[in-house]
């Protein structure tokens, strides 16, 4: 189907829908007072327009545009909207098979990068969870108020520094002539500098590091609301510490755990700066590949397709977490 049929109307869609909302608000007669009467005309209009623009122009329709672009072929500007501009699956075919037409060989490079990204993100998420849980628990249940404020300050302080500079700091440490190699050489533990950057060790360390704050805060908030007496009661009944955590704390803190894991996974899988800075020349991380589709290959439809695949993965992950933990969306977003 020719894309030019649907395409020009898409951007004007939001305006029509917002006008529809406004009319609906004027006519709404629920519970004796319409939306407009309840808020006054001026404020009512502000509410409808602000929320309508936000939902449609900033959130929904751009996603639809991106999705729509992913189904179109790469064409020079003059050919767009012309006869060759038809809807096609060729971009998705490229992701899987490395070519828009030939399906005989798999696109090993990109598929491997995609798989590594997902698996590594999951592992990093679990590592961060294990690392942050004890501290979050201590802060939420045992720490005295003065010490708590200090801990909070110490935790937040590093994140004031931009993620780029933090990745830069790791680079200083991991570089061939960086701190770690210099120290190891000086101690005589190695004879040649280890290529941390090329082996992706630097990348994984940097990624685990980057999102600690976003793991610890949801955990802390969730565990903090657990009444301390429940833990004391369990201990009084004779439960060992690991059972207390398994049977009481973890089930209670499920929303926080789910929230932290979702955030960290998404940020890891969608990470751009850290892989670009800490990744070696051969390292494969999916989001920089998406970036390169746009600014190296200049193939926007392909990039849109790759971006959509990333989006689907994140949505799938969120749904899986919600299903596994039997929670609702409102409970995970603080």
């Amino acid at each position, binding site marked *: 189907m020719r894309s030019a049929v649907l*395409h*020009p109307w898409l*951007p*004007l869609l939001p305006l029509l829908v917002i006008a529809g909302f406004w009319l609906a608000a004027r006519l709404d007669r629920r519970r004796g007072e319409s939306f407009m009467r309840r*808020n*006054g005309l001026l*404020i009512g209009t*502000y*509410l409808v327009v*602000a*929320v309508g623009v*936000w*939902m449609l*122009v*900033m*959130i929904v*329709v*751009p*996603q639809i545009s*991106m999705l729509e672009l992913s189904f179109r072929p790469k064409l020079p500007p003059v050919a767009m909207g012309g006869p060759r501009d038809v809807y096609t699956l060729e971009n998705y075919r490229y992701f899987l098979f490395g070519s828009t037409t030939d399906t005989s060989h798999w696109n090993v490079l990109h598929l491997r990068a995609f798989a590594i990204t997902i698996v590594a993100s999951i592992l990093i998420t679990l590592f961060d969870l294990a*690392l942050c849980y*004890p*501290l979050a628990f*201590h802060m939420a249940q045992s720490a005295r108020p003065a010490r708590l404020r200090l801990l909070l300050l110490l*935790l937040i302080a590093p994140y*004031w*520094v*931009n993620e*780029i*500079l*933090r*990745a*830069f*700091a*790791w680079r*200083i*440490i991991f570089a061939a*002539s960086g701190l770690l190699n*210099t120290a190891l050489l000086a101690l005589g533990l190695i004879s040649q500098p280890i290529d941390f950057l090329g082996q992706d060790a630097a990348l994984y360390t940097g990624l685990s*590091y980057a999102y*600690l704050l976003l793991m610890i805060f949801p955990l802390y908030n969730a565990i903090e609301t657990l009444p301390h007496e429940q833990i004391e009661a369990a201990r009084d009944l004779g439960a060992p510490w690991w059972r207390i955590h398994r049977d009481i704390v973890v089930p209670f803190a499920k929303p926080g755990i789910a929230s932290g894991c979702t955030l960290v996974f*998404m940020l890891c899988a*969608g990470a*751009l*700066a850290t892989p*670009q*800075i800490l990744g070696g020349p051969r390292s494969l991380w999916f*989001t920089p590949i*998406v*970036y390169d589709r*746009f600014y190296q290959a200049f193939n926007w439809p392909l990039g*849109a397709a790759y*971006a959509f695949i*990333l*989006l689907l993965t*994140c949505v799938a992950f*969120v749904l899986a977490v919600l299903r596994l933990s039997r929670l609702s*969306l409102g409970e995970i*977003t*603080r």
Partner: protein
Amino acid sequence: MTPDGVRRALFGFYVALFFAYLFGPLAVMGVTAFNDSAYPQAIPFGHATLRWFGEIASDDELVQGFATSLRIGMLVVLVAVPVGLAGALVMQQIHARARALYYLIVVSPVLTPGVIIGISTVIFWRDLTGVTHTRFLYNGVTLTVLGQSSFISAYCMLIFLARLQRFDGSLAEAARDLGASRGQVFAHILLPFLRPAVLSAAVLAFLASFENYNTTTFSILADKTLTTVLAGRVRQGTTPALSALAVMIVALTVAGALAYEVLRRRADRRQREERRTAREAERRELQPALEAG
């Protein structure tokens, strides 16, 4: 050592390691800021110097990027705070059945990878400005403000929702009863109540916008923000001027945190004074009542 003592020692070790992991890189970077080696390194440490700090100011690209980041940050505050407030108010009033879908839509940008927001914003506005012949809107600053606002408004909305939950509806009713119109209730009663939330939402919005990279790197088009300049520099190789920048940021935020603590203490003291006055008044009031009663 007792089992309890062992456990406490282990925990202390864990905490020490944790914070070493957290602060280690920054400490190293801090050292390189004062090292006069042209390439950022901590060891070997040559002579201490402050020249990298001076270099920041004379670095045109950095300063330009900083200015653009500031501009975008302020514009994002102007967009995200009112939109977030509207979102929270609508959330309170919407049909219960529509509420779940509404929440899903407005919170989705928070759960979407930043790059996708950047990409979709650029694609959409390229089309829209083309079709409506408004090409002048298609520039880095506008697109970045729009892209960032999509999720920053959600952050603001969550802040406002939390504050609104504690709002005493009878205050609005009392104002109405005394003759205020809806608009007057909003301006005289609701907005002053929301003032702390407006402030924290504005600060949050500005900071979130300032440090954003993933979305900005797509939407900024030909312009540059501080973060995109930094990213470019770090990848190309750089002098320790960047380390110096990091040190300055940390110093600024420590100063900010101290100032905030001072203000907080002062506000607490004022509250305690007020409560003491009230208790005095209570005591004085009961006296004649006791005598007469």
